[in-house]
């Protein structure tokens, strides 16, 4: 009996490739939610001024910024686990660094922090790195 060699990818391989792609997209969404969480926590911290540890702990439930900030972190963790089920850790973990890029952009928009050439270059290089990983991820 002769073995059959297929040159085209099998249905299973294609399925795996689409799962990997989905995982990558989920983690990218994750980083946007993670950045939103950080911005909300900063807004919450500013509205509390100088809270004691107890005031901060109560604030998680009474301050809407802090509440939704921590809720975002919960969603972040849940989505990350969903992505990790089928995605590669070595690919998805570095992508979480996109978080830094979004926070840096949001800081300019919301907190009017100034952007300089080095920061813009840094954000661009992180996005480029994720794009390189994305190319790797689209291959099965």
């Amino acid at each position, binding site marked *: 009996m002769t073995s059959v060699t297929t040159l085209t990818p099998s249905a299973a391989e294609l399925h795996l490739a689409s799962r990997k792609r989905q995982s990558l997209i989920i983690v990218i969404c994750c980083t946007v939610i993670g950045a939103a969480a950080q911005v909300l926590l900063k807004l919450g911290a500013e509205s509390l001024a100088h809270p004691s540890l107890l005031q901060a702990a109560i604030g998680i439930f009474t301050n809407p910024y802090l509440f939704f900030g921590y809720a975002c972190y919960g969603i972040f963790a849940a989505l990350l686990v969903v992505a*990790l089920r089928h995605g*590669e850790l070595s690919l998805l973990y570095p992508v979480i660094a996109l978080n830094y890029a979004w926070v840096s952009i949001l800081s300019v928009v919301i907190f009017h922090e100034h952007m300089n050439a080095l920061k813009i270059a840094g954000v661009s290089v*992180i996005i480029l*790195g994720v794009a390189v990983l994305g190319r790797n991820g689209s291959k099965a």
Partner: protein
Amino acid sequence: MTTPVSAMALVLFGSLLGSIGAAFLKAGAVALTRHWTSLAYNWKLLLGVTMYLLSSVFFIMGIARGELSVLYPMVSLGYICTLAWSRIFFHERITSTKLAGVGLILAGIIMMNLGSR
């Protein structure tokens, strides 16, 4: 301002803990099935989340004690360890494309932090 060794140790430990946490998250995620007990009795997932949270605590403590420009490159340890765990425990392939992507991301993080001084 000089960066004490204790600050470096805290950041390095935080990075290492975060990478181990991520590996447990992956192990826990893989063990999930449609049955609810796979989530309820998932100690790996719980351990992963705990280590991930703890890593940020060590990280913040470290950063409060030293200079960001010295401490941030130490975060790279976490990324390199994660690549190692991925290969050892999950038998993932570490391709040159992946290394290039991680290298770019690390360079970007360092540039951003030099820019925010």
